[in-house]
Each structure stands twice: as structure tokens, then as C-alpha cells.
């Protein structure tokens, strides 16, 4: 209801000076205000009510004169939706004799005077109310834009995280649900169903006839030729307007969906549902949602690029490994096996994701430095000369140098450089001791030693796995970290013994599993 406070005060103060009383009547035939307190004659009230009706229906000034100089008149009050009340004035007509003294007025002029007077009053109140209403509306809009700004700020912080993840998407949807005051928020990615998420206010879950597939259905029902699709969104402010949409839920709802799209790549939809039809999706909300969808698409695209890059690097690295292994006939498949053993040890140790990935790279690349060693030294069946051995000993350091320009591998390099250190400090290149040696390097050393003994070497034949394990155990504490050896024994018993009869695992198969594990991540 409009606040008529100051107007009522004005009317009250007019009573003694104008000797007229005032009333305000609402549209539903009830008195909102009277300057005369609460005691009236019933007949008078009836008259006023009738007049206020007439004013509302006729939408104009009404005047009636009664006996003994009494009059009753009134005028409609309007706001932008039309007449909302009637302003009534009544009393005795002014003393005629004094009026004649004042000038040329006649009694017959009274209705006109009253009309002018009431009209001025009415204009005063209407202008006042409109201004107030406009100010209120502006303030509401301001309030809304503050909320939008807040929401936008919160959500863009979520989105700024470099990579796209389930958690980020879930947070995003929860924020949307809470701050946009809707009943459901969802993300629908037809080609990446693992990213499909929905957040639903529990109270509305049963309103959809097929709650499990409702969001899928909402998207599928979007007419492909809807003109607003050119703007990358779709909106239904009342599901009753569309038979198909209406059929999805028991109660009417509104629905908005925006495309998650980056350049030419379409990923899916971001959607909101609300069962509150007193509100609509505002322009501001649409803008916000579209901009969020755009940012989200950007993040997904970056993540895709990142994944592609990672895959590219993996393949690069593999070709490097193949290149060195092609030179050294005796070590074919060695790097893949060392990597496999190292990974098993790493899993057993419960390495973090990051440590595990670093170990993955370091173990597969640990011998990359051999690329610079002449083949005749690598494949020499006789004992190496000191000079030749010195060249061999260069390979961990060289490996580090080769990989240095690859930023993604920075954290793997220490494990490559130090994989020939010994636990007792008598290894190379730096003679690090015990825990000084990076953990990754200590793991690779165990895997490397085991596989070297277990494989054919230019100067000897291959030993059995049992023999190899026995030797590894023997050098635990001197050459190798005894804790890692213990873990390797466990890993060997649980995983490797089964494969004992198998020949060297084919590289291709390993490649496949590696690819897969990356793609899932």
C-alpha cells in the first residue's frame, strides 16, 4: 500500500482553515482515512461511500449539494496503474455574505472552486507518490545490481581457477542457486556427461515428473529454431505457455538456459529453474548468466588445450625414449619397465598427485641423457675403460640438461639427475647420501637396479627375477634405500610375481595404458 503519511497530515491541517473535512476511500469500498476521527452518522458514511464509488466509476470530479448549505464532493487519485482511491471533501458552504465582500463570487461557483482546489491537492499527492515510487524502484534496482555484482564477484573467483573441475562447477551451481534465488541450477554437457551436475532445492525435487532426467528434458525440448538461440540462450518465463514444457512438472515454473560456448566450440548448457512465478528472469540476471557461461567455456577450452598439450608432451617424451632405446639394443623397454615399477612403488608410498606425476616423468625419462653417448660405448661387450665409464656417468646430468627447457618437467629433473646416487653416498654425480637424495631418485634407483639385473646386458646374460630381487635386497642400505627396497619387495610379491612368466611387456600396450590414465585425469 502506498504511504500517504505526509498527505494525511496536510489534510488534517487543512480542516480548521478550510472548515472542510476530508476522507480517502480505497478501491474496495473502504475508508482509508478520515480527518473526522471515527464517529460518523451511518447515513453520512453511506453517502460518502456512494460518492467514492461514483468517482471511481466515472473517473472524474463529483459534487453534490445538500440541504442547509452542506456539500459533498470528491476527485479520483491515480497512480500509473489507474485510479487507486477517491479523495472526498465535505462541509458547509462558506458564508455567502463574507464571500460577497471579497469580490464577485457567487454561490454557484462553489463546485468549480472545490474542483480546482481538489485538483491541486490531487496533483500534489500524485506527483509526490510517483516520485516516491520511482525513487523506490530505482533503489530496488540498485539493490538488485549490488546483489548481481556480489554474485558476479564471488563466481568469477571460482572460475578464475586455472583448470576446470567437478568441484569448481559444483560450487558455481551452488552459488547460482543461492544467490539467484532459484530452485535448481544445472550444467548439461551432452558430450561430457561426467561434467553434468545439478543442484536442486530439496523442496522442489518431487515437482518434476521425471526428476532424474528433467534437466536433460528441459534442454532437449528447446526448439532448435527458436530465434533467441542466436543470442545463445533460451528462456521460458511461464511453463504454461508451452504444452511440452508444462508437461514436465506438476506446477508452473520458469526456465532459462545459456549456451556454454567458446568460439566455435559448443560444450553444453547452464540452466536455472524456478517455481516462483511472482518473479521473472531479469535482464541483469540473463547478462550475468551469459557472462558466466562465457567464462566457463573459456576455462573449459583452456583445460582442453592444457590436456592436449600434456598429451603432446607425453608423445614427445615417448619418441625421445624410443630414440635412445633404439641406440641401445640391450635396454629396449627398460624405461617403460622402470617406470612401471616406480609407479607401483609410488602408489604404495601414497605419493600425492603431483609427486606421482613427477615420478612418472622422471622414471620414464631417467636414461634420456644416454642420447649423447656413442653407441659403441653403450653396446660394448667388454669391460669399459675409465674414460668410457666417465662418459657413461655423465648421462644423469646430461638428461637433466636436455629436459631443462621443458617447464612442465622442472620438478622431475632432480630425480633424473640423482638416480645413480647411492644411499651410502658413493654414487654419482654428486655423491649425495641417504635422505639427501630426492625420494623420486631413490625409487627409480631400486626399479632401475632390479630391471638391469633382470635384463640381458652386453657383458652378461639376464638373471631371473628371484636372483635380481635377492641382489637388490643385498645392496639395500649400501647402494639402495632400505625402506624403498622393503616396499619394492611388497610390490613385487603383490604385482610382479604373477607376470613372471610373461616376456618383456610390449611397449605398445604400456603406451595405451599411459594414454588412458592421462585422459582420465
Amino acid at each position: 500500500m502506498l504511504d500517504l503519511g505526509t498527505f494525511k497530515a496536510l489534510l488534517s491541517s487543512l480542516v480548521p482553515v478550510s472548515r472542510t473535512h476530508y476522507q480517502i476511500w480505497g478501491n474496495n469500498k473502504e475508508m482509508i482515512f478520515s480527518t473526522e476521527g471515527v464517529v460518523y452518522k451511518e447515513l453520512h458514511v453511506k453517502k460518502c461511500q456512494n460518492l467514492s464509488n461514483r468517482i471511481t466509476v466515472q473517473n472524474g470530479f463529483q459534487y453534490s449539494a445538500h440541504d442547509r448549505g452542506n456539500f459533498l464532493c470528491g476527485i479520483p487519485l491515480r497512480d500509473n496503474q489507474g485510479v487507486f482511491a477517491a479523495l472526498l471533501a465535505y462541509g458547509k458552504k462558506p458564508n455567502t455574505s463574507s464571500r460577497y465582500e471579497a469580490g464577485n463570487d457567487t454561490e454557484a461557483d462553489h463546485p468549480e472552486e472545490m474542483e480546482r482546489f481538489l485538483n491541486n491537492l490531487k496533483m500534489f499527492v500524485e506527483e509526490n507518490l510517483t516520485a516516491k515510487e520511482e525513487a523506490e524502484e530505482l533503489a530496488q534496482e540498485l539493490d538488485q545490481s549490488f546483489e548481481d555484482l556480489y554474485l558476479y564477484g564471488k563466481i568469477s573467483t571460482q572460475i578464475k581457477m586455472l583448470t576446470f573441475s567437478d568441484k569448481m562447477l559444483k560450487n558455481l551451481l551452488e552459488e547460482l542457486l543461492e544467490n539467484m534465488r532459484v530452485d535448481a541450477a544445472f550444467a548439461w554437457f551432452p558430450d561430457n556427461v561426467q561434467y553434468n551436475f545439478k543442484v536442486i532445492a530439496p523442496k522442489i525435487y518431487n515437482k518434476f515428473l521425471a526428476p532424474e532426467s528433467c534437466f536433460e528434458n528441459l534442454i532437449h525440448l528447446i526448439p532448435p529454431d527458436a530465434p533467441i538461440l542466436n543470442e545463445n540462450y533460451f528462456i521460458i518465463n511461464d511453463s504454461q505457455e508451452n504444452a511440452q514444457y508444462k508437461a514436465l512438472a506438476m506446477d508452473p515454473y520458469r526456465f532459462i538456459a545459456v549456451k556454454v560456448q567458446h568460439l566455435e566450440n559448443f560444450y553444453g548448457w547452464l540452466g536455472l529453474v524456478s517455481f516462483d512465478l511472482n518473479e521473472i528472469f531479469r535482464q541483469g540476471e540473463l547478462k550475468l548468466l551469459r557472462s558466466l557461461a562465457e567464462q566457463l567455456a573459456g576455462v573449459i577450452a583452456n583445460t582442453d588445450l592444457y590436456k592436449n598439450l600434456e598429451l603432446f608432451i607425453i608423445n614427445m617424451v615417448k619418441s625421445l625414449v624410443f630414440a635412445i632405446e633404439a641406440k641401445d639394443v640391450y635396454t629396449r623397454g627398460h624405461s617403460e619397465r622402470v617406470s612401471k615399477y616406480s609407479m607401483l612403488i609410488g602408489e604404495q608410498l601414497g605419493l600425492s598427485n603431483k609427486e606421482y606425476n613427477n615420478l612418472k616423468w622422471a622414471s620414464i625419462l631417467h636414461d634420456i641423457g644416454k642420447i649423447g653417448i656413442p653407441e659403441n660405448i653403450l653396446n660394448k661387450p667388454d669391460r669399459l675403460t675409465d674414460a668410457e665409464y666417465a662418459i657413461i656417468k655423465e648421462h644423469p646430468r646430461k638428461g637433466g640438461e636436455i629436459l631443462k627447457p621443458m617447464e612442465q618437467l622442472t620438478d622431475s629433473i632432480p630425480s633424473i639427475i640423482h638416480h645413480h646416487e647411492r644411499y651410502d653416498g658413493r654414487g654419482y654425480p654428486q655423491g649425495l647420501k641417504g635422505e639427501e637424495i630426492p625420494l623420486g631418485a631413490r625409487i627409480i634407483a631400486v626399479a632401475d637396479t632390479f630391471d638391469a639385473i633382470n635384463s640381458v646386458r652386453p657383458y652378461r646374460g639376464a638373471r631371473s627375477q628371484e636372483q635380481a630381487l635377492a641382489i637388490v635386497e643385498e645392496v639395500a642400505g649400501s647402494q639402495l634405500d632400505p625402506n624403498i627396497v622393503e616396499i619394492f619387495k611388497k610390490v613385487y610379491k603383490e604385482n610382479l610375481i604373477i607376470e613372471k612368466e610373461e616376456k618383456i611387456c610390449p611397449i605398445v600396450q604400456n603406451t595405451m595404458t599411459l594414454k588412458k590414465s592421462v585422459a582420465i585425469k
Partner: protein
Amino acid sequence: MENNKKVLVIDDEAQIRRVLELKFKNRGYQVIMAKNGEQGFDIIQKQKPDIVISDINMPIMDGKTLCEKTNGLKKYRSFLTIIITARINPEDRDWIDTLQDTLFMEKPFSPARIVEAVEQYIGGQGC
């Protein structure tokens, strides 16, 4: 809707004052406004508001000085202070922790959340 609680909004930005004024008036609060810390402090002493919402960066007297000064008053009369500020650094956060009955909200803030925090505080007082 009427309640007898007084809210003082101190901010040099008119639109922030306006938005909070509307928000609290609509919920029956009496709203008083000030454009800087000095005006604000004067009002706090004379009109004893129940809730003070203040910006940090303001001319004449900033929100920090104001909070330091009003924190002393809280020994005698408790009221809630909500600091609204664009960026909060860890030192400021620690500083706010040392103040009695003081919260902060980062700008851009949600007017609805400020109302929520105020009503939670008032509810907690058992009023």
C-alpha cells in the same frame, strides 16, 4: 514491521548509503546516515545506534580510526559494527579480530547478506 533498532550507515558513496537505507527501512529499522567517520562518530555518541555499518576508505576520518574510537565505547554499550571494504589483507583481518562485535564484508557486498548478519546479531541478543 516496525522495530526500534537504529542502523547507522557510514559511507562516502551515496549509492551504498541509499541501498542500505532502503534495505533496512523496508524492514522497519530506523536508518541514520553519515558521509565520513567524523560525522559517524558524532552520531554514534549522540544517537546510540544498535548497528553501525562503515566503509574503511573515507575522507576526513576513515573507518579504521572510527572503529578504534568506537571500540572503546563498546565497554559501556554493546553494538554491532560491520565493516565493508573492497579488499581485506591479512593484517586487517587480524585487526578486526581484536575488535569487539565487529564483522567485515568484502565489497562488492550483498545487501541481503548484511541484513542477514544484522538480524542474526539482534536475534542473538534475545531482542
